[in-house]
């Protein structure tokens, strides 16, 4: 079990960096350095973890060595490990970007440690095998993201943060209620054990399990920003500094999607009608999200609505677990996983690039900028790659993600949802093109107020993370096989929860605990 401790590292590394950073309260420089170290360590730990999971299967560790299900279990399957790696990538990219983007005021108020706490919370959510601990991770995430959103106290920020925190607290409350009720029914919080016990409950009282799943669905649906629960997202994501937007846009909603995947594949047994329901939700999410994007003329608002729309594609992949065909279920889940990874990289990058564009052009308002293709051709390229990927232009990462989802959808005969996916895809192209033609192609309007040119080192620091993420996008695009293979294997694992349950070891631990009353220690 000692090797299992690597499961905790992606959580502990940024948390330690945050704690150390807070000790160095008056030294934002040290905090920044710790931030880089923490995010880098998280990425390294994530990669190590992924390798181990690939080699040895699901990894689990019992905190405090209290045997499952009595203590808290951390468990990493392929999905969790992949998500942690992507978290590390985004954490590192955003932290580097922040070095040049975040003002001294915010730095002085622990900006960098806050980011680290957020990263720790995200990793915790991906790795915990305990439903209440998942709730705690969500709380950490919520509070860290809320403070990051509000930090600075600008008026627009406050309005956005208020909506954000209110609606997300409702989500937390629903989640907590769900956890409480689940515990009331099953007397367990361990997700592996819940898998066993809710399966038993579902045999005698399927309606109860369905109602419970509904509660979790709404709670995570808010987090994931699905139709019609997404209103908090477009109301808040455009208000903070762009580095914060990028971080939240890349990671937070995907934690919600992850939680949906986790509870629907592990915690709950297959539920009747859930596939059809999720397909409808997915379709509406894709369409309404992209409609919002079409209506907007401010870069960050466009990008924010696109998050919603893209969540629909992920939910569509997940929805196919309701299919009768095992091949379709596997293809759908694999597509969802691929989509999540692609989307995190691309969406965070788009925000980063939009920040550079606004820095050079003077505004996020499309009407007030222009001429960037001529003024900064390198930036045009940096934008084209993630924008094209988001729009599904082959052979960038988004194309493969969309191909996988559409293929699975067609195989599952989800005609209307496929139609929605393709229609939303076209409107995605339209709104990415809108940013391109307005900010890059159109000559700068007379009203444009470009700020004084930024220092070279600053631009380089802003561009470097974006370049790295763009390179990832292109690499996945040209050579998608390893990632798809990973997604496919992750899906297989998710569809065979017995591996996860065995790795956590609940059935056996439980029996032995009842037998002699003694635990691990």
């Amino acid at each position, binding site marked *: 079990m000692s090797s299992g401790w690597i499961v905790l590292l992606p959580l502990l590394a940024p948390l330690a960096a945050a704690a150390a950073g*807070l000790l160095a309260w008056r030294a934002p420089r040290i905090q920044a350095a710790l931030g880089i170290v923490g995010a880098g360590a998280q990425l390294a730990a994530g990669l190590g973890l992924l390798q181990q999971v690939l080699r040895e299967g699901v990894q689990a560790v019992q*905190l405090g060595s*209290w045997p499952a299900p*009595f203590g*808290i279990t951390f468990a990493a399957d392929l999905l969790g490990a992949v998500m942690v790696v992507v978290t590390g990538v985004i954490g590192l990219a955003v932290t580097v970007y922040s070095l040049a983007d975040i*003002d001294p*005021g915010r730095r002085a*108020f*622990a900006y960098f440690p806050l980011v680290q706490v957020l990263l720790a919370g995200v990793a*915790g959510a991906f790795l915990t095998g305990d439903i*209440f601990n998942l709730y*705690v991770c969500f*709380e950490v995430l919520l*509070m*860290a993201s809320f*403070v990051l959103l509000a*930090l600075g*106290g*600008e008026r*627009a920020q*406050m309005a956005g*943060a*208020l909506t954000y925190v209110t*609606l997300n607290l*409702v*989500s937390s409350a629903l989640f907590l209620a769900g956890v409480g*009720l689940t515990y*009331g*029914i099953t*007397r*367990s*919080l361990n997700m592996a054990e819940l898998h066993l016990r809710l399966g038993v409950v579902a045999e005698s009282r399927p*309606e*109860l399990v*369905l*109602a419970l799943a509904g*509660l979790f*669905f*709404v709670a995570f*649906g808010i987090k994931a920003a699905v*139709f019609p629960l997404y*209103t908090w997202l477009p109301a808040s994501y455009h208000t903070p500094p762009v580095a914060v937007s990028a971080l939240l846009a890349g990671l937070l909603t995907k934690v919600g999607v992850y939680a949906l995947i986790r509870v629907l594949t592990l915690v709950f047994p297959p539920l009747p009608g859930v596939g059809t329901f999720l397909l409808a939700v997915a379709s509406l999410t894709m369409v*309404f999200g992209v409609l919002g994007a079409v*209506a907007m003329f*401010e870069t*960050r608002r466009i990008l924010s609505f696109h998050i919603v729309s893209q969540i629909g594609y992920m939910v569509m992949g997940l929805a196919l677990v309701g299919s009768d065909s095992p091949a379709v279920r596997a293809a759908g889940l694999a597509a969802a996983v691929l989509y999540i990874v692609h989307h995190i990289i691309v969406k965070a990058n788009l925000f980063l690039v939009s920040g550079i564009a606004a820095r050079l052009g003077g505004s996020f308002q499309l009407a007030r900028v222009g001429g960037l293709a001529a003024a900064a051709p390198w930036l045009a390229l940096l934008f084209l790659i993630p924008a*094209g990927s988001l729009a599904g232009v*082959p052979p960038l990462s988004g*194309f493969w993600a969309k191909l996988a989802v559409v*293929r699975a959808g*067609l195989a599952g005969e989800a005609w209307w949802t496929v139609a929605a996916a*393709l229609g939303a895809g*076209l409107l995605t*192209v*339209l709104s990415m*093109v809108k940013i391109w*033609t307005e900010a890059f192609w159109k000559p700068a309007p007379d009203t444009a107020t470009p700020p004084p040119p930024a220092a070279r080192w600053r631009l380089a620091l802003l561009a470097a993370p974006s370049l790295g993420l763009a390179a990832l996008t292109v690499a996945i695009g040209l050579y998608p096989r390893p990632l*798809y293979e990973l997604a496919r294997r992750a899906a297989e694992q998710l569809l065979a929860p017995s591996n996860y349950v065995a790795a956590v070891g609940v059935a056996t631990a*439980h029996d032995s*605990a009842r037998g002699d009353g003694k635990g691990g220690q």
Partner: protein
Amino acid sequence: MLSAMIAGLLVAAVLAPLAERRLGLWAAPVLAALPAAFAAVVLLNFPRGGGVALTEVRPWVTDLGAELAFALDGLAAVLALLVAGIGALILIYAGGYMAGKATRGRLLAYLLAFLAAMLGLVLADNVVTLFVFWEATSVVSFLLIGFDHHKGESRAAAVQALLVTGAGGLAMLAGLILAGQAASDLGLAGTEAWRISAWATVDLRQHPHYFPTLLLILAGAATKSAQWPFHFWLPGAMAAPTPVSALLHSATMVKAGVFLLARLSPHLGGTPEWGWLVTSAGVVTMLVGAGMALGQRDLKRILAYTTVSVLGTLTMLLGVGTELAVKSAVVLLVAHALYKAALFLVAGNVDHGTGTRDITALGGLARHLPWTFTAAVLAALSMAGAPPMFGFVGKELLYTSKLDLEALGAKLVIAAVIANIALVAAAGMVAVKPFLFRRREPPHPPHEAPASMLLGPLLLGLAGLFVGLVPATFDRTLGPAMAAAILGREVEMKLKLWHGLSVEALTVLVLSTVTVAGGVGLFLVLRRRMATARRLLEHASRVGPTRAFNASLAALPKAADRLSRLVQTPSLGRSLSVIIAATLSVAAPSLILLGRPSLPAGLTEVQLHEVALAVLILAGAAMAVVFPKRLAAVVALGLSGIGIALLFALFSAPDLAMTQIMVESLTVILLALLFAHLPPSPERSSRAERLGHALLAGAAGVVMALFVLVVVPGSFPPSTSEYFLAESFSAAHGRNVVNVILVDFRALDTLGEITVVALAGLGVWALLRLKLGNDRGGEP
């Protein structure tokens, strides 16, 4: 081999700007050597008959049906020759055309990238490969149409083209996937199902998804090849620099749709659905394009509409699908590529030499641009279908193939004759009107183009003449190979200028003569009545799809906004209502199905102080609702929270109570601080709204209560609590089980919650101290 050559073109594209800076004028000819070499390789490996000369398969994402698969059959080879050959000439031309402009390197780069994409497309043998290159041509086309992006019309045209072809592309993607899945259903295993050439071994037409598959793929082909009603993006694409129009928007890319039809006709064609859909789309497009061409005054737009017309003809022929029809499609496709590219380059030379492309401002240029004029005449004769040009051979075959078709034939022949008369007239307007007749004063004194810009049009024009005179160079080699690939069987081809004296041959000859004579007559009339033609056209296009498209594109943001606002509301109250309603709708039905819950025992023995606490909690909640001011409401909620804390304390959980009090206080403080930053309390909602909210909130309460009641413990052993009690002292060395749970059994939860509290404190601190200016932020 094939993929390496395509990759080579891409590398050249990346290096082109650098090469341009180093080599200047010589960059274009040097770069042109690459596509020329490509053409040479294709020629050297030219497939015989219906065979395949080169194949290449590399795994890509096999689980998604994606392979990098290429195959050089007759169809691919002829198109690759056209693309690479014309591409090389146009690269050279572009070098001269853009001389002295800073954007020359970029144009060369785009053109090379386009060649790579287009060659990949025609060589593709896997549906995903095909789609990847298909979309790549659309993207490069977008960048090229918007090349002069400081002009609004260029940007609009680029967006229009991208949206139309992009929409078709997405439909086609779905169609191709359906086709691959159908092939898989019909027994092709693994990636075989996604290889187009392998479809020959199954019959996709028998699959139940055949019709939707066909419709979706046709949508892709029709948009790309500018079939009515999707034709309008092509004239708009003329905003691109002329070499681009010559290469992409006449000779090669717009043929991609026709190519797709040709590629798939052995697998999907031959059914009544195919026949009707493809033929009728083609006929309408042929006529609309021909008619619209006559009302234009811009050389390039005239050419664009004639291109639309020819694309319609090609589509029609593939829809008919008989051997003769396919053969004439083959001839027409090649002939058209040659003459149309030449004519565009001529138009470029005229523009370059005079500063205008408006034919009403052009005349008598023959003396000043003799070589351009020569090329124009050669190409226009081919376009007009006059002997002895290649175009003549093509038209003869076209008429013959229709006559072949009994009943339908007569109507199609009439349509084709009408369209061709218009094409002849258009050829006159492009190649005769600017060069002969009265001299006009163009914007600057006319001058001939440099050699680099004459090579292309002259060679292309001469090629048309050469093939017309020596048809054996085509009908023994390229022609039958391409026709065989389309028909899926070996064919023979015999082209000749003179068909002898049989009744059929004479009928065709008469039709040809009528066409040319009618066209010349129409041209002579039109030359004097241009204004009338334009007015007529304006009337006609008032109802056309162009307007419909532009109007919907313009109306889209508003409509999208209205729809989006159905959900996206600035009102927090409404968002909350939606969430609560959603919770009710997913949870309530199941709960109701569960039946009446049984009330747990002991619910009746309620103590007085418990009632008092309940009243306190409820009162807090009620006050929160009633108080008009936000701040007061928050404080009232705090009261509720304190009540809950006391409840905890009462049921022997003092630690919980303490936490609750802390959290409540912090919440109140945080919210109060937030409010200080917000505009004053908004208007209270209306009575009806409040009633709605009350009902919703009440229902939510009822559902939560129901939930709690139906959760009957006891079905599982309380092993966890037993374990905690048993182990707390012996293993964890603590007497207070709750404390042990918090700091040992579930220590991580506590660590997390400590972090939350610390963050909250930090947040409050920062809110109090840090107030940045409000100069930035998201408000529009």
